[in-house]
């Protein structure tokens, strides 16, 4: 039994969502009304009914759903005059690491403090792993983490994780 398991989650439907200056509250209200989804605060991610919202930058989020869906029209409609939506499905590969050894493994990969006092479920961060830009989210307290990188880097990220995991890592 490996201390840490790894598997790729695919496919992911994703839409980049931006609010115009000063329009974030209005956008949040429309998103809540339409999907019961809260816009995530800085450094956090939220979810509702299979939809995930990750904070990326000021006035900038990503809305995701696992599997293939046509999310864009609904989000373009939700954004209306308050912001814009751009489809980025397929752009990222998501690696899920889970198990008691995953924190140790990630300590060798990410320049981030993942101690439970500093990083907990529903926390998110944009950082770098082995020279690859990644977006990290903690999913649960096992702990489970998702690492999202640009799709073209997936093989290199998998290799970097594999090297650092050694015998403690089990691929699913």
């Amino acid at each position: 039994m490996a201390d840490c398991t790894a598997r790729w989650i695919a496919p992911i439907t994703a839409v980049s969502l931006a609010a115009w200056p000063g329009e974030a509250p209005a956008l949040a209200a429309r998103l809540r009304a339409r999907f019961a989804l809260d816009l995530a605060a800085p450094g956090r991610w939220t979810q509702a009914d299979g939809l995930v919202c990750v904070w990326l930058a000021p006035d900038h989020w990503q809305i995701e759903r696992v599997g293939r869906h046509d999310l864009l029209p609904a989000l373009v409609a939700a954004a209306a005059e308050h912001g814009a939506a751009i489809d980025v499905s397929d752009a990222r590969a998501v690696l899920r690491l889970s198990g008691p050894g995953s924190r140790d493994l990630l300590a060798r990969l990410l320049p981030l403090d993942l101690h439970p006092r500093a990083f907990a479920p529903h926390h998110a961060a944009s950082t770098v792993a082995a020279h690859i830009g990644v977006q990290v989210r903690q999913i649960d307290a096992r702990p489970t983490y998702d690492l999202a990188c640009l799709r073209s880097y997936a093989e290199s990220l998998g290799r970097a994780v594999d090297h650092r995991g050694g015998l403690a890592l089990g691929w699913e």
Partner: protein
Amino acid sequence: MMRLAAGGLIDRSRSVRFAFDGRVYTGHPGDTLASALLANGVRLLGRSFKYHRPRGIMTAGPEDPCALVELRTGARREPNTPATAVELFDGLEAQSQNRFPSLRFDLMAANGWLAPLLAAGFYYKTFMWPAGWWERVYEPLIRRAAGLGRASGLPDPDTYDRAHLFCDVLIIGAGPAGLAAALAAGRSGARVVLCEADARLGGRLLAETCEIDGQPGAAWATSTEATLRAFPELRVLTRTTVFGAYDHGTYAAVERLADHQPFPDAHQPRERVWRIVAKRTVLAAGAVERLVAFPGNDRPGVMLAGAVRCYLNRYAVAPGQTAVVATGGAEGWRTVEALAARGIRVAAVVDRRAEVPPAQAALAQRIGARLFAGARIGATRGATNLRTVIVEGATGGAQRLTADLLAVAGGWNPQVQLACHLGGRPVWDETRAAFLPPTTPPPGMEVAGAAAGRFGLGESLRDGTRAGSDAAVAAGFATTAPEPPSAPDDDTPATPIWLMPGRKAFVDLQHDVTMDDIALAHREGFRAVEHFKRYTTHGMATDQGKTGGVLGMAAMAALTGRSMAETGTTLHRPPSTPVAIGALAGRHRGKDFRPTRLTPGHAWAAEQGASFVESGVWLRAQWFPRAGETEWQQSVDREVLAVRNGVGVSDVSTLGKIELAGPDGGAFLDFLYINMLSTLPVGRVRYGAMLREDGFVLDDGTVARLEAERWVITTTTANAARVLAHMEFAHQVLRPNLRVAFVSVTDRWAQYAVAGKRAREVIQAVLEHAIPDAAFPAMACGTFGSARLFRISFSGELAYEIAVPAREGDALVRRIVAAGAVPYGLEALGVLRIEKGHPAGGELNGQTTARDLGLGRLLSARKDFIGRAMALRPALLDPARPTLVGLRPADRRTRLRAGAHLLPRDAPARIEHDQGWITSAAFSPTLGHPIALALLTNGPARHGERLRAHDPVRDGETEVDVVEPCFVDPEGLRLRG
């Protein structure tokens, strides 16, 4: 055998076999290589750097300047490893260094007789003539004679790791102060990291006979370790040296995971570099012993007094059978006691003080040691081992004493290096006779115990307890300091620096720097510390002068009549201890030096046997060789002709793609590009170029308007990230109020260029949709199901670029090929664009303006855009600027090469005749001869001229004709199909 019958922190129940210079010995777990060699009576370990003098074991720690060996064999051979820092393991192999033909009989020892020629700076003075001999004769000779161990010269077979650690309190050093600090900080619940370079916790407690809380010091360290390990948030890292302090509480440490084994276990890194980020830091790195300078102070058998106690108490080894102890105070007398307690004969005690306290005089009398008060060491004798110590008395007479161990008490240097890495200068303290930490250590750091000059045990424990507790409180934990562990305050007076001048009185044992060298530097005017350090190389060896550095400064202080405080010390910089380059590189070696980006069609291209090339971090198909093609040029020519005469397909997924949306998108694009883009209708594409703020071209590409408020732009592969950053700056800083959002969609789309007169039929087959020219003319764009189609051409042929979601890319390229398109790679793509005169990497070099590239007509006068004002600078408008032209060889045969410079036909090849250079060159299979693009002064006015292309680097000299940069179909008829 020199092993004592009892005692020591070694495991006598087990034996460990090891080899030194091919001879097999045994030791015990818990030994270092140095202690095991001493236990076997081996005292000669190597030859010195410059004079090839015999050298042995001087200290019991990693700072040893003499006991350097080559460790391991084959690809794992590592030079200049202090035997004092090597944990003994079964099968260890070590060799002595810098000797020829053998350690005992070393021919290079003749260098010792040449010492007057080899003084400081000798290579600046002695080997000046003839000038040409330096590189060919002198330097190779000196390099062969000098130096220490040999690197293996083979690839390192081990792996290394890097990792990150965050904590509230970092404690550096697990001696008495560090352990006390860890106890105090750990109980607060703070996240504590305790780093110790040794395999065991305890520091000097392991080397001394002392008591803490009624227990022997070493036993207290063991029980304290158990207490610490029970704290859930405290992490102990042994075999871990913190070697650098950086900004914002960041430290670097190296953990030696497998250096105590013959080789690492499967999947085990050999070493790991930790980046530790700490809210607060307690530096409890202790102190290292100082050398004493006297003639012959380097001979094997001369050892520092504290190291002698360490060998006796920790390793149960007698470093000699008959000892002389030289001291200036209580420090040496502790060694006298320790030697006597272990039954080792102390022949004499040489005390520099004229008045020796009665208790110490009585001790000498009790153990039968002669006492020389107010005396000094005049010299030492012995071929490869100490035999005789010559003592010069207060009245001038000399005494020869037979001894094989000379223990010298030179005092202690606080380990202040990490406190100085952010620029702090150590402060000289006369009463403690030591450089203390700077008044401004790195923010968040406090120095405790011996590292702060508090050498007494009780004092050190109290200091550590207070520092640990304060650090936890400062990191936000409510705690009070516990009762410090109790120990007597042996208030040993400080030992002053002791210099006894004379020949071969070394102040730097690793670089063979003597007091004479310091005197020479003084005579020649190199008196400031930073100057004489470099002139004499004093303190510049791998030991960084930890034992002898302060002595050199004291010698210079004495020569100049300045105080130690006025003389000062050199600046400390990381790393404070040698770190393997491999450990710093971590996993990023070979193929993993940088990540690789692969396109969605990579697997397909690999199946076709494509040759790949690195293009930035992307791996791109360079060409697709077919059976019978033996040269790359054959493949590339075939691919180019397939496009010109039929249809080809190329993977352009690596081009940067940025999607924009929002009502102000048009205004933002007008601001970014030199040409007008807000007027672009929906369903159309326009070529555009961007400038940097300074008016030079940043990048070029296309802009497609997909919907009223949605655009997708392309960038070159190389500039994709730079353009996105430029746009982020333009939006966030320059135009924050524009309602536009944009994001890179490079990875979302797999994109293929389909080019050639049959391109339309291929695209229609793939899309299963008719796209007549009237409905989809040149520069049209549109959406077909999940695909986006753009009628744009880089090759000058009828061409489309088709983009599909990345997951569909592999299937799409297979369908395109099945529909009849010939795959072409990056090389053919390059040839096609050179034939059309499109600027790319060689021309978009950051030094060219839009006019230089023939894009001047795009510059809009009806709007503002980034770079507009600076592009109007007179020098940028000068017609004499190198401007884009085409070239072909006058003989239509000779190959042209990028980088060759253009000169008038009859002018000599001198810089004042230089008129430009070739930026891109290729063989054009379409035309049947070589072609090139070039930047030529006043270029457009010179079509028809004949010039020289001068290439001295590759011995090339060709006459070339200047022509239009577009070689194929200048009217653009093919584009329209």
